[in-house]
Every structure is written in structure tokens, then in C-alpha cells.
């Protein structure tokens, strides 16, 4: 709390991000130990977690006050105007401190308390069990064994303790190989594909340079040009600059999209994963994947390749396992890549975001192949940065153990599983897509800008009615209706039985009677419950004046004499 000088500022304006007329909401800004909170006049709350803040900027003083622009890692951008410069300065300084912690122990996860006891917390951590996962894949087996070489992180600090290696790889071989590989990241098993004919597998290693072909017989080399973390970081930067522009034209949008290179990178990752999956599935070949250190591009390609090959990873739980295995356990440096602590900004890079985007593109091409929906991907993205749960804190397993995360923090996965309903894909389940090896089409026109990620908080850019939500709720409703039908049928049966039982004594009837009104009540309650769901579903965001930017025209147009100019601006505003 020592960083907070001002906890509450009144009469703060929140500007509409895309409004060219500086349309705003007025409200009160609160600063807590973990969040920045804005409550507007309609009591609508905007919560911003300090850890989500990527940058805070204080702009030059204007007549209406001091502007404060906050960019978040979940792509929310807010623009406040604080009436007094002094307050703005205090908040600015506090946020600078609060958004960049120096020590892991100051992250939110270490103070977050969802009111669970220790046993519950531990059970949460055990929910995703990688030992189980290797068993599911079918290892150990005649070719692959569990190696204890890294049991004490002596061979490779950034690998997990338990690694699967070929049976013929003795400890001296492993030690030798690790000395030859960057950061000691020798080749280990990432995914074992059980197919009918031959067993094939993908594994991973770190590179820095590449293998001399002469020394590796029976091995084919394929170079796929995925760019490094620095290129990816500046690519995303450019993308965000473009789509944050007010009054953006179509041409500027597409030329910006092109020059950012973002979709080109996404396609490169996807192409590499497809190459991997094809080699394993069609050629029954084993594949060794590496980049320089083997924790960024390698993780992207291995995890995405596995997702194409194995339907299990396309389930909610399977996706969690995949992230735990290919990203968390194999040492993707989440804390550095997400900038959890005040560290080297050159280590920050949207590698995992790209992985999620590739998965989203797959869900677009194969709408029935995934058990989860877009909201699930967005939620995971939210939490790699939130530092609310322990999963993504630290850069490798060794570090996580040292931080005692399992004792001091909670795991994200049980919370997502509890909320599973929100993340279910209502269309999941067609056999042809559910079980198949996915072969996505990567012709350039298949790649689209992921609006719901990069503009997830800019509601006015979204469709005003969501087919997905309607179908999702309808699916839920169908389950309820099935239950209702069963209930009703059994009640009718009871009634009929009673009637055919013939004359019932009045006493007996009386004893049954009190039940009836209650039954009726529950029925009518259900009836009521059904309808409002529908109403909510059908609510059209663009048509309710409160959350709709169009309503600003009403105010402007009701001015005494509208000028043509204001109309033109009106459209300009609408367009951006």
C-alpha cells in the first residue's frame, strides 16, 4: 500500500476510445492494492487489474484536465481525464509502481484468496497430472522410457524433472547430448502418436545452429521460417498501433495489417505445425523440432502439431494438459514473455498469444472439432497475464518449485472447469471433425484478423447479436427441457395411477394436496425462468441506448439547429 497516495478521485472522465468528438463518461476512479476501478454515473464498473497494465502514459495537460492513457496486456485501452494534475500524477506514479513488481512474492497470486482450504487447493493443483498424460500417450513402452537423469535439474534447469527418452539413450548419451545443445536442452519426447501401423513421435530439443546432415542418417531436414521473439513483439506492437487509430480507413487497416506481418507469422506457425502433423501421420516419421532455445517456437509448433493429431487436446481438459505439458513443464518463460515482473522489456513477446490465435483459426475452420469455444481461449489469455493464479508464474518448473507456488497460490484449471458451461462449444461433436486428424487450409485468405481478441473490450465493433451465445444457451435450455419432460411425464403417470387406483379416501387426498401448489409453483417458476433467458439472449446491444455509441447522435441532433458539419462528424464517429 505504500505506493498508493490517492485512493479515490471524483469527476474523472473515461473517453470513448474511438470517438472523434471526445465523448466520455464521468465517474469516480478508485485505486486499490490490486485493481484500478472506475464507476460511472450509471454504476457501471470497469475493473483493471494492475498486472494487466502494459503501459501508463500521462499526456500533456488540457483545458478539461490531465489525460491518463492505460494500455493493457489483454488489449484493453482506457483513456481517462483527471481534473487535477496533482491527482493524475499520484495515480500515474502509483500505477507505474503497482503494475511492475520487482519480486514474485508481490504478485497478485500470492495474496489472492478464493476461500478454499489447503486440501481443496492441493486437489486443484493435482487436477492436471502429466504422469497420467504420458500414460495416456502410451509411454513408457518398448522404445521409450522415463529417465531420471534430470531428477535434480542437474542436466537441464529449464526442463521438468521427469523426461521420456529413447530406451537406448543411456545417461552418458543424455549428458553428451545435453552438452551439445543450447541450455542443455537435449531431445526429449513431447508427443507420442499411437497410430495403427507404425509408432511415430514428435520430440523437441534446443538448437542454436543446426545439425550437420552428414552426421544424421535417415533424417530429413526442414527449415520453417518462424521469426524470433523480437520480430513478433514489434509485429504485435504495429498491429495494435494500426487498430487503435481513430477514424481508421479500410485501406489503412489492411495495409497496416500487412505491414505488421502479424498474420504472416501466424500462418508460418500454422504451416510448421501442419508439416509436423503430416510427417507423423502420413509418413509415419518421427520429428525433432527445435529453434534456438526450444521454449518459444518449438513450444508453438509441438503443441499445435499435437492438437492437429490428437482429438484429446481439443477437449477442455486436454487443452489444459497440452498447455501444462508443452508450455509450462518444458519451460516456456511465461514470466519473462508476459512481463510479469519489472524486467528486461526485450524478453517480452506474444509467443503464447500467437499459439492461442492459431487455435482460434482452427476453431474457425473446424467449428465442430473443439469442445471449447473462443471465450475459453480469451479467458486463458486473460490469466497468463493476470498473475492471479500460480500456473503461469515463473519461467520453468525448477523456479516454480522454489517459489512454492503449489503451497502459496491456486491453480487456474479447477476454476475454469467449474465454469465449464461458459466455455463449451455447442456445436462440438460431429464425428467427422471430432476424431479426425485436422488438415487446415492455409491459403492466405483463410487467415483473418481476430477482432474478438484484439478488440475484446471495444464492444461497438462486435456483432450486435451473437449466434454463438444463442446456440450455447439453447443447448443448455434443451438439457433443462429434457429434464422437465421427464419430471412432467412422471407426474402425469403418478396422477393417472392415482385416478385408476379408484376411490381415494379424503384423508389420503389431503395428505397429497399440500404438495400440489408447491409443484405448481416450481413449474411456473421454470416457465418464467425459461422466458427471460430468451429475452436476454435476444437483447440487441446496438439497440439499447446505454451501451451504444449511436445514442450520442440523439443528443447531438437534438441541438437547436443541426449543421451539416455535425452530421458528417456523426458518421465519422460512427465509422470508427
Amino acid at each position, binding site marked *: 500500500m505504500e505506493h498508493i497516495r490517492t485512493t479515490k478521485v471524483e469527476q474523472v472522465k473515461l473517453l470513448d476510445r474511438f470517438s472523434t468528438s471526445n465523448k466520455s463518461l464521468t465517474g469516480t476512479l478508485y485505486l486499490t492494492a490490486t485493481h484500478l476501478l472506475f464507476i460511472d454515473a450509471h454504476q457501471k464498473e470497469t475493473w483493471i487489474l494492475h498486472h494487466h497494465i502494459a503501459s501508463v502514459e500521462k499526456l500533456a495537460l488540457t483545458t478539461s484536465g490531465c489525460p491518463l492513457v492505460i494500455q493493457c496486456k489483454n488489449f484493453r485501452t482506457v483513456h481517462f481525464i483527471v481534473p487535477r494534475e496533482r491527482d493524475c500524477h499520484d495515480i500515474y506514479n502509483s500505477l507505474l509502481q503497482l503494475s511492475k513488481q520487482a519480486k514474485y512474492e508481490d504478485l497478485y497470486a500470492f495474496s489472492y484468496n478464493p476461500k478454499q482450504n489447503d486440501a481443496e487447493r492441493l486437489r486443484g493443483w493435482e487436477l492436471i497430472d502429466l504422469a497420467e498424460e504420458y500414460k495416456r500417450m502410451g509411454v513408457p513402452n518398448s522404445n521409450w522410457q522415463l529417465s531420471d537423469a534430470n531428477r535434480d535439474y542437474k542436466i537441464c534447469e529449464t526442463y521438468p524433472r521427469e523426461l521420456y527418452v529413447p530406451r537406448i539413450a543411456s545417461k552418458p548419451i543424455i549428458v553428451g547430448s545435453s552438452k551439445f545443445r543450447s541450455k542443455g536442452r537435449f531431445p526429449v519426447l513431447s508427443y507420442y502418436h499411437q497410430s495403427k501401423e507404425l509408432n511415430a513421435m514428435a520430440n523437441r530439443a534446443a538448437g542454436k545452429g543446426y545439425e550437420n546432415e552428414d552426421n544424421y542418417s535417415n533424417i530429413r531436414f526442414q527449415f520453417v521460417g518462424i521469426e524470433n521473439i523480437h520480430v513478433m513483439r514489434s509485429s504485435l506492437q504495429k498491429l495494435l498501433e494500426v487498430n487503435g487509430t481513430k477514424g*481508421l*480507413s*479500410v*485501406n*489503412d*487497416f*489492411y495495409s497496416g495489417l*500487412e505491414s505488421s*506481418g502479424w*498474420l504472416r507469422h501466424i500462418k508460418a506457425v500454422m504451416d510448421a505445425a501442419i508439416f509436423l502433423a503430416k510427417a507423423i501421420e502420413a509418413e509415419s516419421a518421427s520429428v525433432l523440432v527445435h529453434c534456438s532455445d526450444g521454449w518459444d517456437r518449438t513450444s508453438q509448433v509441438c503443441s499445435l502439431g499435437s492438437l492437429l493429431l490428437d482429438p484429446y487436446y481439443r477437449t477442455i481438459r486436454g487443452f489444459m494438459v497440452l498447455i501444462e505439458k508443452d508450455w509450462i513443464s518444458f519451460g516456456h518463460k511465461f514470466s519473462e514473455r508476459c512481463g510479469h515482473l519489472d524486467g528486461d522489456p526485450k524478453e517480452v513477446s506474444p509467443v503464447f498469444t500467437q499459439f492461442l490465435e492459431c487455435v482460434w483459426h482452427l476453431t474457425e*475452420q473446424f*467449428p*465442430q472439432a473443439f469442445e471449447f469455444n473462443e471465450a475459453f481461449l480469451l479467458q486463458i489469455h486473460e490469466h497468463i497475464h493476470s498473475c492471479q493464479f500460480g500456473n503461469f508464474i515463473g519461467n520453468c518448473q525448477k523456479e516454480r518449485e522454489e517459489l512454492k507456488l503449489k503451497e502459496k497460490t491456486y491453480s487456474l484449471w479447477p476454476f475454469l472447469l467449474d465454469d465449464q458451461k461458459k466455455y463449451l462449444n*455447442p456445436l462440438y*461433436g460431429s464425428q*467427422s*471433425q471430432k476424431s479426425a486428424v485436422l488438415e487446415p*487450409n492455409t*491459403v*492466405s*485468405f*483463410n*487467415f483473418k484478423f481476430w*477482432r474478438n481478441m484484439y*478488440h475484446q473490450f471495444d464492444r*461497438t*465493433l*462486435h456483432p*450486435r*447479436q*451473437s*449466434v454463438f451465445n444463442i*446456440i450455447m444457451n*439453447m443447448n443448455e*435450455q*434443451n438439457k433443462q*427441457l*429434457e429434464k422437465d*419432460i421427464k419430471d*412432467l411425464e412422471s*407426474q402425469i403417470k403418478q*396422477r*393417472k395411477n392415482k385416478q385408476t387406483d379408484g376411490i381415494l379416501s*379424503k384423508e389420503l*387426498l389431503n395428505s397429497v394436496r399440500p404438495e400440489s401448489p408447491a409443484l405448481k409453483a416450481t*413449474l411456473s417458476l421454470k416457465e418464467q425462468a425459461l422466458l427471460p433467458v430468451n429475452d436476454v439472449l435476444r437483447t*440487441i446491444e*446496438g*439497440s439499447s441506448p446505454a451501451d451504444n455509441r*449511436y445514442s450520442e*447522435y440523439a443528443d447531438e*441532433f437534438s441541438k437547436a439547429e*443541426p449543421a*451539416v458539419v455535425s*452530421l458528417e462528424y*456523426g*458518421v465519422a464517429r*460512427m*465509422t*470508427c
Partner: protein
Amino acid sequence: MEFAELIKTPRVDNVVLHRPFYPPVEGTLCLTGHHLILSSRQDNTEELWLLHSNIDAIDKRFVGPLGTIIIKCKDFRIIQLDIPGMEECLNIASSIEALSTLDSITLMYPFFYRPMFEVIEDGWHSFLPEQEFELYSLAISEWRLSYVNKEFAVCPSYPPAVIVPKAVDDEALRKVATFRHGGRFPVLSYYHKKNGMVIMRSGQPLTGTNGRRCKEDEKLINATLRAGKRGYIIDTRPLNVAQQARAKGGGFEQEAHYPQWRRIHKSIERYHILQESLIKLVESCNDQTQNMDRWLSKLEASNWLTHIKEILTTACLAAQCLDREGASILVHGTEGTDSTLQVTSLAQIILEPRSRTIRGFEALIEREWLQAGHPFQQRCAQSAYCNSKQKWEAPVFLLFLDCVWQILRQFPCSFEFNENFLIMLFEHAYASQFGTFLGNNESERCKLKLQQKTMSLWSWVNRPSELSKFTNPLFEANNLVIWPSVAPQSLQLWEGIFLRWNRSSKYLDEAYEEMVNIIEYNKELQAKVNLLRRQLAELETEDGVQESP
């Protein structure tokens, strides 16, 4: 003329057909007066049944005795026929060329087509102006139906019946017609029931360089304003273009002479600029090999989505004027037959729930496109593969449909029709067995006696068996004005049209079917629950009767 003269080789065996996403098929190729048919005679089905009028361009290639004809269709599909024998191939190619570019409209397929279905309702009489006017019952005190154009003498591109201000007589209309491009005097396009404001449309005023005036025109336009009210004139051309038009006798309304009106200039492109945009876009969509940078830069360079944004923005502006500003508007560009109609019809989609129903949308097309004199014959004569430098072709109607699709995507439950309905309309505007889109205006259609000699598209579409294909299962009537977002991030390439032949839609189709299943199942369950509740309630009352003897 006999078609037989044009068909030198009516039949060739062992022709191989290549289509996207299907294995090649070997079969017999037959040419008829209106169709190109290929059948492998396998399951008694034809693999290909193509209207000659759907053919936009053909290419020939020869490798030894094997000839190849590449057929590029107006719906953007590209198919390839391998034809053994150079002579046969040349004959087929020249026949296709001749048959797909017939000069005379009366030789077109609609004049020969005999429907195989029972006509329940004759579409030629489905949307009569009188009936449409009746829907505006509120407007009757201020507006009237005029038959001044009964013989198409006042305005050749208007229908016989138009809606005009009650205060203006036919004599004045005749005078106004001489002051407006193509005789297109201002007429009512839409009446906003909520506040009585209107959309009118017309051709540009013929002010010329010396600033000609027309008192009747000024009176007519002012007659549409209520006391103390102002209106807006939306000129779909930028100011400089409108100014240049004066040199050719056209022009725009001077503020001094229309003091109660404010003029707004927008810039919706026309003619070859749109046509080139379409050609570039389709070319780029057909290229499966280009890398990401090239694809994005070609998509941008085509400017297609820029045109979409400009048209939608202008339509939103028009709708705002009416609904938010409470002001009437007059829309025109130069002729008032292209960009004008895009704006007036899209504004109605935004404002008027009826135009989002199947029937209402058909009425809108009938009223705002066909009767309003959009020159379909000229505009849709060629499509994306045309290499003729005719300046009449332009995908004006396709752009309109694309804009509707963009709004449909943003309000997927507010439309009674689905995407397939829009795609079907696109196809029939370019090549059809029905007479609906033949001719450039009502006058031409009358002369061609289309009502007697051809079948209306609506006669076919409005049968329950067809309608079910075009019905949106998510539709729930929405009486609100729907304001779309026109930000570049909210607009999308219409994949159902432009990528239709370039990628398999199998998984998307399956997903759509699954969605329909869920909705159908929901209806079934709801019905069953209601039935059971009723049963239970009846049993309960019976019990109640038994209980109290």
C-alpha cells in the same frame, strides 16, 4: 434465328470435366440453345448443367489433339473441359461464345423456360405499387399515387405509378421532369412511420453552368417538408464531381434556391471503378498461391471493402437523418439509378423491420431496384472475368447485397432470410431462367411482355419448398432500428460469394446443419413441455373435481 445455326457440334464424347473440390469426371458434352450439359451417365445425373448466359469468358488451349476450354462464370466459378479433337474443341468454343453473348433479349432462356413446378402465386403480381402504397396508410394525407408516367413518356426509367407529394399536380411533375436527369423527378422512396419523415430520390438537377432554376422543382421538394422543418439532400458524389457535372448540363441544388435544405456530399464510386474493383478482388481470391503480404495488399488494392464502407456509411447517415434527426431527405447522384438506390434501399434495411423479412426484402428489390429503374441488363451483362471495355457494367447490385450481408452478420437474428437468399439473388441477377431481372426498366420490361412470356423469380422463390432453404432459423422479429458498425475491423470479405469456389465449405456447412438441428430440437422440446403441462393441468382439475363432490 435458329440456335442450330450456332451449334456446329452438339455433342462430344469422352470430355473430361474439372471442377473445384470434385474429382475429374469423364462424360458426354451436349450443347443446347441455352445450356451446356455434361453427363457421365453414371447415376442418371448431369454433372454439369450450365446456362450459357452464366458464362462470362472462355479461354482455349491446345496440347496436340487435346483441346481445353476454361469456362469462367458470372458467379465466379471456373471450370475446365478437356475435349478430344481440335475441331470439336474449336466448334464447341465458338458455339459457347456465340450462345453466351446473344444480342437479342428475346432469345434468352427465360423466354423458353417452362416451369416444372406448380405456380401458387404469380410473382408478377406479388408487389403491385398500389398495394405497397397502401402499406403507407399514414402517408395518405400528404402523399398520393400519380400515374403521370403511365405511358413512360415523362420518365422512361420510372414505373407507371409513383408516389409524390399530394400538393403537387401532374402538370408540375412534367415540368420538374425536364429539370431532372433522365426525367427522374423526386419521388417517395420510404416513409418513416415513427415520425412521418421520408426518403425521396431523383436524378441530379439540370442546373448547368448558368445555374438554371425550376420553380416547380423547388416547390415539389419544399412540399415534402412539414412546417418549420429542415431537410437534407444527400448527393452521393463528392462536391468537385458534382461541380464538374454542371459543365455537362447537370449539377446540384444551390442553397439559395433551396434554403430549407442542407446538402451533404458523399463519395460512392460508380461504373468502371466498381467493375475494376470486382475484377481485382475476384482475381486475388482465385489465387491460391500468393503469400500473406500479397493477399492483404491485393485485398486492399481492390478497394472492394472501401466501397462497402462508403455505401454503408452513407446509408447510415441517411437513416440517422430520418430516425435521429427527424428530418426528411432527398438522395441523388447523377442518374439516380445506382448509388442512389444503394443508399435508399440500405437505409430501409436499417430502419424498417419489414424489409428484413423475406417478403419485405423482395418488395424492396421490386420497388427500389426493378421499378426504380436500375439498369440490370446493362450492369449485369458481364461479371468479374469480362475483358470488354464497355462502361455500362458495374457490380452495383452485388455491392448492395454485400452490404446487406454485412448487416446480417452483425444482426444475425434480425433477418428472416439467410445468406443463401442473398447468394441466390446475386446469381439470378446475372443469369436466370426467370424474367425478373431482364431489361433495364419497367418500360423495357413492358415492351418485352415479360409478364406474359416469362416466369417471375418470385413465383418460384415464394413456394414453401424453396422458402425453407432461404429461411434464417435464428430469426426473431426485431422492431428496432439496427445500426451496423462500419469500422474496418467490423467489415469482412463475403466468403460465401468470393471464396465459394476456392475452398471447401464442408465443415462450415456441417456446423450450420448442427445449429439448425439444435434449434429444431429446441422447438420440439418446447412444444412437448407445453403439451405435457396442459395434460397435467387437466389431470389436476379432474382431481380437483373428484375431490370436492
